C-alpha cells in the first residue's frame, strides 16, 4: 500500500518535471522525486543507497542543475510539434512490451533461490570476515573483493567532479 502510493508519487513527479516548461520548477520537482525515491530505497532496506540518493539526488544534483540554469536560460524553447508521432509511438510500445515480457521469467523479489543469491553471495556471507578482515559484508565486497572496480568508480567520479568544477567556476556569462 505504502509502496504503491510512493511509486505513484514518483511517476507524477517525473511526468510533471518533464511536462512543465519552467526549468527551475523542473529542478525543484526532481529534488522532490529524489526525496521520495530515497524513502523507497529505505523501504527496500538499501539504507546506503538511500543516503546517496538523498544527498546526491536531492542535494547536490539540484544545486548543479540550478548552477547550469543560472548560466544558460530558465525557460525552455518552444519546439514545433512533431508531425510523425505514430512510428515513434509504435516503437516505444513494442520495446516496452518486449522488456516487460523479458521480466516475466525473472525470479521473485528476495527469492532465496534466485541465481543472484546462489552464485558468490554465500561465499561472501560465510567467508568475507576471515578472508578480508572486514566485519561489514557490504564494505568487504566493495572495498576488498571489488576493490579495483571501486577504484575505477572513484576515478570516474573524480573526473566528473573536475569537469563540473572547470565548467562552473570563473567566467561569468
Amino acid at each position: 500500500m505504502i509502496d504503491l502510493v510512493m511509486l505513484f508519487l514518483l511517476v507524477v513527479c517525473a511526468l510533471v518535471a518533464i511536462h512543465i516548461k519552467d526549468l527551475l520548477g523542473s529542478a525543484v520537482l526532481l529534488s522532490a522525486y529524489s526525496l521520495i525515491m530515497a524513502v523507497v530505497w529505505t523501504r527496500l532496506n538499501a539504507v546506503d543507497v538511500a543516503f546517496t540518493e538523498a544527498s546526491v539526488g536531492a542535494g547536490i544534483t539540484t544545486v548543479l542543475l540550478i548552477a547550469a540554469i543560472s548560466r544558460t536560460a530558465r525557460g525552455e524553447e518552444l519546439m514545433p510539434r512533431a508531425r510523425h508521432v505514430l512510428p515513434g509511438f509504435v516503437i516505444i510500445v513494442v520495446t516496452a512490451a518486449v522488456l516487460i515480457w523479458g521480466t516475466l521469467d525473472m525470479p521473485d523479489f528476495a527469492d532465496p533461490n534466485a541465481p543472484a543469491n546462489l552464485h558468490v553471495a554465500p561465499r561472501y556471507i560465510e567467508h568475507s570476515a576471515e578472508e578480508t578482515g572486514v566485519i561489514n559484508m557490504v564494505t568487504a565486497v566493495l572495498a576488498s573483493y571489488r576493490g579495483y572496480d571501486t577504484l575505477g568508480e572513484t576515478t570516474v567520479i573524480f573526473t566528473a567532479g573536475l569537469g563540473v568544477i572547470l565548467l562552473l567556476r570563473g567566467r561569468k556569462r
Partner: protein
Amino acid sequence: MFSTAAVLVLIAVLIVLYRAVKGPRIYDRVLAVNVMGTKTVVLLALIGFIYNRPHFLDIALVYALINFIATIAILKYKETGSLQ
C-alpha cells in the same frame, strides 16, 4: 498505529504534491518540496518503527540536516540571479 500515521502522512504528501505540480510560482513549488522533505523525515521515522528497524531514526535525522540545501540554492538563485 504507526501504519495509520504513515498513511496520514502520505495523504499530506499527496496534498502537497498537488501544490508542487500546480505551481504556478516557483515559490509555491519550493515551499511544497520543502514541506515534502519534512514529511519524508517523519515518514522515514515511521517506516523504521513499522518494520522494526528503529535505527532508521538516524537516517531521518540526516535527511533533516540535508533537506534545506536545495531550498537555499534555489532561493539564492532567485534573489541574486546566480549562485556566486
